[in-house]
């Protein structure tokens, strides 16, 4: 629905929420270079595994990463669509703003022409 109604869908809110935390940003940045195990991802951080798993779950729920378990290792991979959704949303916002500026310009020009026509009489 590309009307003028500025709405942020829930799934995007969760992406922006996911990106609001430095630990999660670091995880996403690392996964941008390829898949990694949870323990590998956790190693740079000074926090317990349960706390770190909360971040992983939040990222997973936001649709930005996928995880799969094989044996005792949980591997995380970045999930492109989640991120490209964010970009698509931004592109849509841009269209809305551009169109609005166009309409403002057209309106002002029209009003001005009307006034010039009045003063020509």
């Amino acid at each position: 629905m590309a009307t003028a109604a500025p709405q942020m869908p829930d799934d995007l809110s969760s992406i922006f929420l996911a990106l609001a935390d430095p630990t999660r940003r670091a995880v996403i940045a690392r996964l941008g270079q390829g898949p990694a195990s949870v323990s590998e991802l956790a190693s740079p951080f000074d926090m317990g595994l349960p706390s770190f798993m909360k971040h992983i779950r939040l990222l997973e729920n936001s649709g930005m990463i996928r995880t799969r378990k094989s044996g005792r290792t949980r591997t995380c991979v970045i999930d492109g669509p989640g991120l490209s959704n964010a970009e698509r949303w931004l592109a849509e916002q841009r269209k809305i703003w551009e169109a609005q500026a166009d309409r403002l310009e057209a309106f002002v020009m029209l009003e001005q022409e009307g006034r010039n026509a009045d003063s020509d009489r």
Partner: protein
Amino acid sequence: MQTVTAELDLEVSRIIKAPRDRVWNAWVDPERLAKWWIPHPLICRVVSLDVRPGGAFVTEMSENDGPFVPHLSACFLDVLPGERIIYTNALTGGWRPAENGFVTAIITLSDHPEGTHYRAQALHKSRADREKHEELGFHDGWGTVVAQLAECVETKT
């Protein structure tokens, strides 16, 4: 004062061949605003346009003569007559936190030889401050968000 990040914020800009006060009036007069705020054939109703800090900015829309439904509910943060309007949908009128706002809009008017330089910036939710943009060798298609995040992380370590 604010940081604009290329990946999360956007800016549109126009040179409007009309004096600044005319553009300003198109913005702050409810009758005028209603005529351009929402694309045709939707009809816009301006419920509140209290252009002062803390004032409510509420618009509704109607399709095919149907009932009016919410379009925008926001709060003005800063108003400099003839020059600047800042509002956000993170708040509603009277500074009350909104359920799910996500944007702060900064509208700036300045004089230009041909009329008025109109600028609208939209700042979106993000705490990812960017330094300068560098090309990072990521897999194709992960897009700018990841690149930005990586940069952000790299500048912190």
